[in-house]
């Protein structure tokens, strides 16, 4: 038996390749690390960096055409790569368990929760079926599910995303494994639910001593849990160390780039809101470049980078794969550029978009003939003004009515009540024919750059379509010229016009979506989570693009996002929605400095912070957003509010202006203070 001194997991020079028809994709190409018992290790990197494949390799959960071609994975002294399938099966789910990204699709929809939990335990013959059932209930309770005995026999679709991820965690911990692999376990969840799940994971690690490997694209998420982090790029580890060290003093230019590309809540927004980005894209995994794989994009590259660097110690407990830092150099933070752009124009006296008392109810289909109709109250009386040239951010959890509001403003849906006035024209109930001339001025950018571009049309056709529709280009030649100019505007080469959407990466596709929206020269653009599906660096590029376009074309943005740091970064004003109502609205800086509504305060507080000490003092909002079919009486937030009083159940507080431009719908504004408050003050002083 291996002694306690041995690491739990020892991965040496792991190479997992995909043997595809298009060539050998070297997804994981030389990864080494060790993990001690009970340790928490984070793996961060962008899509395609190989982090998920590395995790799957650890329990040899690979599918054709992926294969481990070299290297060793020793788990508790046993060589995983050499184990036959039966012995692997004994390890999977028993000694190593895995929690996946999407809890909505990870549970089998036609099997009861109890069955899926119980089989996890009985499959490894540690429990009899009745014992497993009892344990399943207690596990669910441990994972924070109320009345576990009652919901044990529920079906997966009856659970929300957060509850399902708790079930997945219960499954993961069912056999008391010594290692849990969590692959982006909170990426599909709201920030409030993410905070709950991360708290739970940290507590489980502390209580049960289970080692955790947490894979995420978000360094903030990793910093809340992990004591050590690996940064992966192009199939290999480029940096390793404690999260706080990496965050304050990155020793690999890629880590440096990741850090500066993401807007942070604990840093003041500079005058020029553009983020630091790195050019280009990760290299092709079928042919890694000679030398350092990051060299082509690296702003610090030197001559030595033509040779492939090794992962070497650069400080106590820190490793980096970089010639520059191994030689002792530091990577300087980028200097925030001064506000070069012309001062943003003063807001016009009358709003470009005026929304008043907007209501949208959906009549749901009857479940069957015998049931009464139910009504989903998606938007329940919203007032918003958007002035020309400004950016208004819309935030709230899923189910708060953000997207419905966007579709109403676009008049893709007709409101049940209330008014939508665009540039003086009431379009609340205008016919599609009457709105059509306005469509040219109001455009939308969608979340999914994969689903929102027609795969059978070339980019040129996609962009020329709206031009012809609105008679902005009379001839084909004219349309071509305009398409070329549009592509240039969003930073794509003219040759892109002849290609099809599938030939582009996610970031490039979102540029195409933006070009399509801008084709008809709108002055108002609605972005429904336009950057949520993108990697951090690409997000930064798109944010920069949107900011630049706004300055050049005087665009007005209504920007929906669930990432608060991004919203704060890009928006002038922010509207916080909850169950179809405005909870708070204020200037962006003011809202984050002094959130007056308990909901705003807890949303801000739930954002994973890069500062581990602060993470422990945050307000974790209990429970989940109630159903819009049967919302609570009075203030809809009262069921989760730390400051709720009997009065909150009786009457809905009005949206009152407590300071110029700062409106709050709360009977007790300011009663819940965010821990972040002093921090933003501090960073403001330093800025």
């Amino acid at each position, binding site marked *: 038996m291996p002694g306690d001194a041995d690491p739990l997991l020892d991965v040496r020079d792991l190479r997992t390749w995909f043997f595809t028809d298009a060539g050998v994709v070297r997804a994981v190409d030389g990864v080494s690390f060790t993990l001690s018992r009970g340790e928490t290790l984070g793996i961060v990197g962008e899509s395609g960096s190989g982090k998920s494949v590395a995790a799957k390799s650890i329990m040899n959960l690979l599918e054709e055409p992926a294969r481990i071609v070299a290297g060793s994975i020793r788990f508790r002294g046993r060589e995983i790569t050499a184990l036959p399938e039966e012995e692997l099966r004994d390890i999977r*789910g028993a000694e190593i368990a895995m929690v*996946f990204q999407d809890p909505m699709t990870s549970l089998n929809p036609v099997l009861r929760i109890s069955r899926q939990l119980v*089989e996890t335990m009985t499959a490894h013959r540690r429990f009899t079926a009745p014992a497993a059932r009892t344990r399943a209930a207690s596990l669910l309770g441990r994972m924070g599910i109320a009345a576990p005995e009652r919901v044990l026999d529920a079906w997966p*679709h009856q659970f929300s995303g957060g509850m399902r991820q708790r079930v997945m965690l219960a499954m993961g911990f069912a056999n008391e494994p010594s290692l849990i692999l969590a692959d982006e376990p909170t990426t599909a969840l709201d920030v409030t639910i993410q905070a709950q799940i991360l708290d739970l994971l940290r507590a489980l690690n502390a209580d049960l001593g289970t080692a955790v490997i947490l894979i995420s694209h978000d360094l903030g998420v990793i910093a809340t849990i992990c004591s050590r982090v690996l940064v992966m790029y192009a199939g290999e580890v480029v940096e390793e160390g404690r999260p706080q060290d990496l965050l304050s003093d990155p020793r690999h230019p890629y880590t440096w780039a990741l850090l500066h590309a993401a807007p942070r809540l604990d840093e003041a927004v500079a005058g020029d809101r553009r983020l630091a980005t790195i050019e280009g894209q990760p290299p092709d995994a079928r042919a890694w470049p000679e030398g350092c794989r990051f060299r082509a994009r690296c702003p610090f590259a030197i001559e030595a980078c033509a040779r492939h660097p090794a992962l070497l110690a650069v400080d106590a407990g820190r490793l980096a794969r970089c010639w520059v830092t191994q030689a002792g150099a530091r990577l300087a933070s980028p200097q925030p550029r001064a506000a070069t752009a012309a001062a943003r124009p003063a807001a016009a006296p009358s709003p470009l978009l005026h929304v008043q008392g907007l209501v949208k109810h959906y009549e749901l289909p009857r479940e069957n003939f015998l049931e009464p109709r139910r009504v989903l109250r998606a938007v329940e009386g919203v007032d918003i003004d958007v002035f020309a040239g400004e950016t208004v951010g819309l935030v709230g959890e899923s189910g708060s009515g953000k997207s419905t509001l966007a579709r109403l403003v676009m008049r893709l849906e007709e409101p049940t009540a209330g008014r939508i006035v665009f540039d003086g024209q009431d379009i609340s109930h205008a016919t599609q024919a009457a709105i059509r001339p306005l469509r040219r001025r109001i455009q939308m950018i969608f979340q999914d750059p994969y689903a929102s571009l027609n795969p059978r049309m070339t980019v040129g056709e996609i962009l020329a379509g709206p031009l012809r529709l609105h008679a902005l280009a009379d001839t084909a030649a004219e349309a071509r010229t305009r398409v070329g100019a549009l592509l240039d505007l969003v930073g794509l080469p003219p040759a892109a016009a002849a290609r099809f959407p599938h030939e582009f990466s996610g970031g490039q596709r979102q540029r195409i979506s933006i070009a399509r929206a801008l084709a008809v020269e709108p002055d108002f653009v609605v972005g429904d989570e336009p950057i949520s599906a993108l990697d951090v660096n690409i997000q930064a590029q798109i944010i920069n693009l949107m900011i630049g376009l706004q300055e050049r074309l005087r665009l007005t943005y209504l920007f929906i996002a669930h990432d608060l740091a991004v919203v704060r970064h890009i928006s002038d004003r922010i509207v916080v929605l909850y169950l179809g109502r405005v909870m708070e609205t204020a200037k962006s800086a003011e809202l984050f400095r002094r959130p007056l509504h308990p909901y705003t305060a807890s949303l801000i507080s739930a954002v994973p912070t890069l500062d581990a000490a602060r993470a422990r003092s945050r307000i974790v909002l209990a429970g989940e957003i109630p159903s819009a079919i049967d919302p609570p009486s009075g203030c809809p937030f009262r069921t989760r509010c730390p400051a709720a009083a009997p009065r909150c159940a009786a009457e809905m507080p009005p949206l009152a202006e407590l300071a110029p431009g700062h409106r709050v719908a709360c009977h007790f504004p300011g009663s819940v203070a965010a821990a972040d408050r002093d921090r933003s003050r501090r960073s403001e002083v330093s800025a």
Partner: protein
Amino acid sequence: MLRYITSRLLVAAAMVLLATLIVFLIANTVPGDPVLTQLGDVAANNPAIVEAYRHKWGLDLPIWDRYWIFLRGLAHGDLGLSISSQRPVIDDIAQYAPATVELSTVAFLLSLIFGLPLGVLAAMKRDSWIDHLARAVSLIGVSSPTFWLAFIMLAVFYGWLGWAPGPGQIGADQFPPPDVTGFMLIDAPLAGQWDTFWDAIAHLALPAIVLAASTMGLITRTTRAAMLEALSQDYIRVARAKGLLRRAIMLGHALPNALLPVITLGGLAYAQLLTGTVLTETIFSWPGLGRYTFQSAVFLDFPAIMGVTLVVAVVYVFVNLLVDVSYAMLDPRVMRR
């Protein structure tokens, strides 16, 4: 669940009522005068005979009165008299339906028993010899015309090899068992006539295989595609990560999901088998509803056509009800979305 079934039953009842109306209207608006067909040239030229004939069969009443009479009759199980056989249509149907139900049910079971496992195996061992075999079998089954397959089967297994008996439901040397349920395979053992039973099975084999061929092909293909779809889902990867046995993953996790499209197809296929046996029954001299339908159509025997069409409609509604209920039992999301 009970509430769901009640609601589906109400829908089914409404569908049947609608079917009666449509059946009645179609039968009364098709071109072609039953009087002329039935009476023959001489009688048809005599207005008195024609008038008396029309009066006897109620053809001189307004159409809604006739529909009401039709509905009232239906409530008492009265489908009217067949013009050509001069017997109550309900009796005709009761006589011919069991043979058809027997034939198509056996054919349906055959196609399920072979198609389902073949489809599952083909998906489990993708691109192996069994997958290719399944592909070939289903392709041949789906693309062979029924009448062609029927003749070939008869020629080979009856004419040439002599393994199978000839056309008909039982051999000439057998006596039909006393009519209890109307189903040969049930009545024969009830009467203790085991020879007749085995003879009936032998007679059933060829037409059942012919009928089953295309349905089995469809079921195999659909099962394979549905299994592959299910196997690509995230929850299968989760099941693998739990360390479940491959068999448990396939049969416990993938199959229940893959069955959903198969049930939809199976319901349609069974209804089609029940009502689409005309060719097979004619070739195999099978005393079933298919042949009865064919003959009624030739003679423009409206009461018989309406009766048979109504039976077909009820069969479809009933099979759909079964599909809906079994769908709900397999997929909990159906009842509460």
